[in-house]
């Protein structure tokens, strides 16, 4: 009883989202009765996301049904996608539905808890108390996850499991998920299998199948997902994974069939509709593809999943159906939707536009598009990722724009100078454009340039000119955001500097930026693990100082 008197929400920032004003003031009343003093509220999903961008919240209470605009699930998805909700924060979905079928299983992200209306002050308190205690026991793991240092998070998780905790299943789930992120698929399978041995819970079986998939054991994965669907026909994630397995097994018709079934069960999930659209386009089932892309656009309108690719793909479906009028209309709405967006999106949309004009043999417009794309690229080279750059370069060469093609190919090689698959891809692309002769030289020369630059930076660092090395790598990494070696060396020079002169917050933040970027390239290496460890030590040393 004593503990409950001491328990307070004082100092916690809490965002309340509900479209019903009385409900908001009631919830704020309940929360302030427990000492909360920082409780902004809003009725709109869009506004909620804006607030979360401005500042991060310890607790978010969000109603599922928000009237016009985003619903609660979309708020959750967008917040997670934009990294506005670290693992340490709590997201509670309040809902007037008694059970969770409305959202359960249909979505990529799950809230920490559901609270069904009506609920009393005491119920809210009990739930928050438990969640806060649970989160606080996972505090260290959460902060490692925030740094995307998955191998450390994993070892913390394993350590906690040896203490025979009450939340063993939760930790095993986390262990499985972290193992997948750290690409340790055997460990992931083992964690999920441990749960299954005791109880065949759907998420455990799903995770187990996912681990099998990553280990390229597709037949076993197929059996696992099929069993899961048989026992839980409405567990749509299993459908998604089974479809992926069928694609790997080169059975795209079956993949389409299973995705059709899944989208009927959960018609609101954008990513699932998109998967259906893509697979049916691949299967030349243009009517299904058209319908699915239309649904993607309608559903994605308020969501973080909105992408110019969907417009371009739909436009291409229309071209395949020889419906040029609709193709142009779709293209026009893509331009309208994205012309004021982020420069990356604009570049993306422009490149897609060029490709469509090429398909329609409208060369003048395609050329105009290339000029626009080059301008956007030169303003912000970091915004052009490798797959799109390949498309752009090939379009340039097709239209005889050698200079521009050359510039883009250099960008690709600079970002991937150690990735043989991509370099081979560049070679093949240039050969098919009839300029294969110059390809090898261009690739080799650009690669040497990067190697020379990198060696110069490493030499500076070894000679103790750490500040010069930091500057060189920072500049290099700006222009080559996808280059693993450059990003890791940028982190390393900063780490070496701090190891010598002591840790400083700005440098730690920069280091983390490079390490997170390296992590997102999904090419784990020993060097990366070592740097993560060194970085962690510096963080601790700063905390102690």
């Amino acid at each position, binding site marked *: 009883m004593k503990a409950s008197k001491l328990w307070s929400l004082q100092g916690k920032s809490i965002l309340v989202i509900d479209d019903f004003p009385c409900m908001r003031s009631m919830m704020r009343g*309940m929360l302030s009765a427990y000492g909360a003093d920082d409780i902004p509220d809003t009725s709109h999903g869009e506004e909620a996301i804006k607030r979360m961008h401005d500042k991060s919240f310890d607790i978010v209470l969000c109603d599922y049904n928000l009237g016009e605009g985003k619903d609660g699930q979309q708020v959750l998805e967008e917040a997670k996608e934009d990294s506005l909700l670290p693992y340490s924060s709590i997201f509670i979905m309040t809902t*007037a*539905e008694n*059970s969770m*079928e409305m959202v*359960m299983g249909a979505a990529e992200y799950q809230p920490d808890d559901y609270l069904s209306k009506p609920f009393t002050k005491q119920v809210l308190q009990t739930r928050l108390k438990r969640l806060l205690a649970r989160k606080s026991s996972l505090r260290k793991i959460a902060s490692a996850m925030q740094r995307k240092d998955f191998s450390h998070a994993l070892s913390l998780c394993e350590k906690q499991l040896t203490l025979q905790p009450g939340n063993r299943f939760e930790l095993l789930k986390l262990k499985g998920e972290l193992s997948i992120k750290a690409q340790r698929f055997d460990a992931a399978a083992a964690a999920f299998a441990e749960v299954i041995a005791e*109880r065949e*819970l759907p998420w455990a079986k799903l995770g187990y199948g996912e681990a099998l998939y990553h280990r390229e054991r597709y037949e076993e994965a197929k059996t696992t997902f099929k069993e899961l669907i048989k026992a839980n026909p409405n567990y749509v994630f299993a459908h998604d994974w089974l479809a992926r397995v069928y694609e790997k097994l080169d059975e795209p018709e079956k993949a389409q069939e299973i995705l059709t079934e899944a989208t009927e069960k959960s018609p609101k999930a954008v990513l699932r509709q998109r998967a259906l659209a893509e697979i049916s386009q691949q299967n030349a089932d243009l009517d299904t593809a058209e319908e699915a892309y239309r649904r993607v656009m309608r559903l994605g309108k308020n969501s973080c999943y909105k992408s110019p690719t969907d417009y371009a793909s739909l436009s291409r479906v229309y071209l395949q159906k020889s419906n040029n009028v609709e193709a142009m209309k779709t293209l026009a709405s893509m331009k309208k939707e994205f012309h004021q967006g982020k420069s990356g999106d604009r570049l993306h949309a422009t490149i897609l536009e060029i490709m469509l004009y090429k398909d329609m043999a409208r060369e003048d417009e395609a050329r105009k598009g290339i000029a626009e794309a080059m301008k956007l690229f030169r303003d912000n080279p970091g915004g052009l990722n490798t797959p799109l750059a390949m498309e752009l370069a090939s379009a340039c060469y097709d239209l005889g724009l050698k200079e521009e093609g050359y510039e883009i190919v250099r960008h690709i090689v600079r970002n991937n100078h150690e990735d043989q698959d991509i370099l081979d891809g560049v070679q093949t692309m240039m050969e098919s454009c009839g300029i294969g002769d110059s390809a090898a030289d261009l690739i080799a020369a650009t690669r040497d340039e990067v190697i020379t630059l990198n060696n110069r930076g490493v030499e500076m660092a070894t000679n103790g000119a750490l500040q010069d090395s930091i500057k060189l790598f920072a500049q290099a990494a700006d222009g080559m955001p996808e280059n693993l070696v450059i990003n890791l060396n940028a982190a390393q020079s900063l780490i070496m500097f701090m190891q010598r002169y002591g840790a400083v917050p700005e440098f730690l933040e920069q280091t983390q930026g490079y390490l997170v970027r390296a992590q997102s390239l999904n090419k784990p290496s020993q060097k990366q693990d070592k740097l993560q460890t060194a970085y962690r030590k510096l963080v601790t040393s700063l905390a102690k100082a």
Partner: protein
Amino acid sequence: MSNDAQNLDFATVIASAVHDMKNSLTLLLDTLDDAAGEQSIAATLLQEKLLQAQHEGKRLNRNLIQLLALYRLERSQLFINITENSVTELLEDVAMESRQLLDARSIKLEIDCESGLIGFFDRELITGIVNTIINNSYRYTKNTIRLSGENQGDYLCIHIEDNGPGYPDKMLHGGSNTDSPIDFQTGSTGLGLYFAAQVAQMHSNGKRHGYTETSNAGINKGGRFSLFLP
């Protein structure tokens, strides 16, 4: 206009109506909660009336939940979400919900459950069932209600018992008697028990399914409701 009406999905209509009603209920119950907790109200009589109103509000809410769930069940749209849960926490949560009301009538509520007991079930649905049964016991018990949880063989077992006169003969049954004819003359109780049996049946583990049992093996031969979950 008439065309639109024909195209309306009844499930959507119910869902949105329930959504609205539950918002109102939330506010109503919160107001009553505040009022009933107000120390300055001297008149015990008023306090008791508030608690009674609160009790009816909660009953209304449970009925709404059951109605919607049963409608979904019939159309095979009711899905359950089985998770790992602490049984003690569940029992403490439901006890807390009704504590005030029971206190006012000097009914003792006992919990008998090992603290580490874990169960696999849909938390929302099972909470709803236990609440309904407590509400039922509240009307018939003399002065005690006991909640208990234990493992019995391969099943988790939750009992709700009281020291009232016990269930009438026609309501006594054991096993998974989900399709026994319901006598709606008995009021909400029949619906509640039917709903409980349906939800228990939906909980499965391998080939085993959950079931409910009513007996008069409660305190001093009072009513005892048991929920068995695989």
